[in-house]
């Protein structure tokens, strides 16, 4: 028992260290990329032919992140040697559990129906409250008088005023929604309990729908449509367009420029 607990603790520590390393590595690389861009743009402002990125600059950036990467790889290897595994936590969503339970019930009781009705009201109420809280924000954002100043100092003031106005209303909206969801969850759990105590149906569970004739018909129609489209495409030149794009490096697609 103690051995297992020690193993679990060791695993948790390794996982936390690994998390920190992964996030650090990503952060280091992101900061490097942004630094290269900002310093490169400054250089380009002085000389239009100056490059932002170069092989040397990129290699230097990669080297800066290398120690963290090596450490992360080492920890992964150590974790594998020690048998540290990721465990998949089963899905324990209240709504899903409720649905499973309710599907087994022969006839929903009055309490269950009342709880379901309460959940609906809470859902509608929560979203309505959220939408109402958003109204002042929308009005503020669409009022051009709030964004009239254009000089740099004015811009800061405009942003500050906007944040001061938007944040409280957003907090109110999210608060209303959260309260509604918490109360709804409580009601869902209650309904699940009621469903557990109800009389079970003979074959009450929601059996997966079989693939009947309708599905086969849809398949046939889509297959025919697909083949027709492909033939039409070959004839109207859209197939050639695919080739021409694919054999030329799409500099935008790969983010080159």
């Amino acid at each position, binding site marked *: 028992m103690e051995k297992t607990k020690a193993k679990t603790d060791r695993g948790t520590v390794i996982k936390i260290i690994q998390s920190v390393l992964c*996030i650090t590595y990503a952060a280091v690389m992101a900061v490097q*990329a942004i630094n290269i861009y900002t310093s490169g743009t400054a250089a380009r402002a002085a000389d239009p032919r100056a490059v932002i990125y170069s*092989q040397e600059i*990129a290699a230097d950036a990669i080297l800066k992140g290398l120690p963290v990467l090596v450490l992360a790889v080492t920890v992964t290897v150590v974790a594998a040697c020690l048998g540290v595994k990721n465990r998949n936590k089963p899905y324990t969503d209240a709504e899903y559990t409720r649905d499973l339970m309710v599907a087994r019930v022969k006839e929903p009781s009055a309490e269950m129906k009342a709880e379901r009705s309460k959940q609906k009201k809470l859902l509608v109420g929560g979203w309505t409250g959220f939408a109402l809280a958003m109204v002042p924000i929308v009005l503020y954002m669409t009022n051009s008088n709030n964004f009239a100043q254009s000089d740099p100092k004015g811009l800061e003031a405009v942003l500050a005023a906007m944040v001061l106005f938007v944040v409280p209303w957003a907090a109110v909206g999210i608060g209303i929604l959260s309260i509604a969801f918490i109360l709804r969850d409580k009601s869902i759990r209650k309904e699940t309990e009621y469903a557990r105590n109800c009389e079970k149906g003979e074959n009450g569970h929601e059996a997966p729908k079989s693939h009947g004739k309708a599905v086969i018909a849809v398949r046939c129609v889509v297959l025919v449509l697909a083949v027709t489209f*492909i033939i039409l495409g070959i004839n109207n030149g859209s197939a050639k367009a695919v*080739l021409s794009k694919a054999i030329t*490096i799409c500099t935008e697609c790969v983010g080159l420029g």
Partner: protein
Amino acid sequence: MDNNKETLKTMRPSKRRLIQVYAALLYNAHIKGFINGEIFTGNSKYACVPGFNCYSCPGAVGSCPLGALQNALAYSGKTAGFYVFGILLLYGIIFGRTICGFLCPLGLIQELLHKIPTPKIPKGRVTRALSYLKYIITAVFVFGITLWYGIMHGTTIPGFCKYICPAGTSEGAMMLLANPNNADDFGMLNILFTRKFVIMLIIGVACIFCFRAFCRFICPLGAIYGLFNRFNIIGVKVDKNRCNGCGACVRNCQMEVRRVGDHECINCGKCMEVCAQKAISIKAGSITLKAPEGGCAGDKPGAEKKRKIIAGTLWGIALAGLAFALVWFNFLDPSLKKPEPPVQPAQPAVTQEQPQADEEVVIPVGFEEGNRLADFEIECLGGEKFSVSAAKGKPVVINLWATYCGPCVQELPLFNELYEAHRDDIAMVAVHNCILDDDPAEWVANSGFTMPFAVDTEDKTVWNAVGGTSSMPQTIVLDRNGIVIYNKRKSVDKALLESLYAEAAEK
């Protein structure tokens, strides 16, 4: 000893993993591309691969369905993209999201990243809500931006590829840049790369902590294939007579499924392991591809053995196919034979005008900076001729572009502005790549540009003379003596163009 055996057994890759690796290898069979840093340009790129695999990856031998879709949407004002729609319908109805589970290289990368031992974010309501984000991304980036720019502005802006796609950044840009032959391409990088690189890092980290984060929350291809999941021919099916509705399948699934086979199900078949009723199997129509332990209901005696023989045969055929693909795409494909560079007539030794120097400096003919550009002649769309020799004495600007290349189209007004500003003392031509049947003459006529345009010849006269590659835009500037002072594949801005002109005019 037994423990070690058990550990080794659990570390053995599953058949699904092998299929994922196989698909990734098959899509990227052009191994030579990784060595040379060049993309494959063969006819196999007529076909889209089912999974997410950037067609600008040096190894890619097929087209990316999402890139092709965006390209088709951008062209929808001119040509209906029936071909891509047909391909997507075909893949969707046959496989649905089975592609995500078995045939997507990006899915494989995400699953491998998730294997890094860290605390994991379990699925819940927040992840469920986030799973709808991919539909918004599909609507805005794949359809909205692409259609808007394609129809309203006549330019190709693949919204998802340009702003988000981590496959483009990792498989395309980084694989190309990693090759020393493409050192010049670093000059093209700007804010677009920085932004996409940071996005790729964020998605990568998300995938470590959250199972298939990209697939669940962002992937437009998954969103599109998900629409077919109820009707797909190959996928996970549930035997309704065996299922008792216990929900173990959904509880143990790491995707956002609420029912086996719904739009979020990638048909990976992991639920088969937890189903006590043995109700789940992977089927192609009525044929069982993978049965639960103990077989399916109604199995004839010897069915399991028959399945194993069929699987073995299919693996044999698949491996032979892969071997053939590796040989074909690396050694035999006709596109691998590069055209011979045009033979230049013997050039007299060219001297730079240095009156004080007695010795002559021989300038080699070529397209590198400092070389004298080989002469070529091309007919412009207006009927007039452009040739390097005729332009001697003037600064020369040559731009390689294409209507389907977004950055090329965006920078054309700058060239036209330069041409207008120095009309009497500049020789300029914008040469369109000759690979589309689509005639750019109409586009040019509607654009209102006054500078000369030409379309490269079928034997790529201009491309070969200036060292054009498969990436665009490319700008070449010659000084008054016909010497190359600038030849780069990157977008230009006004300041750069002006400074290049000033430098060329000085000499």
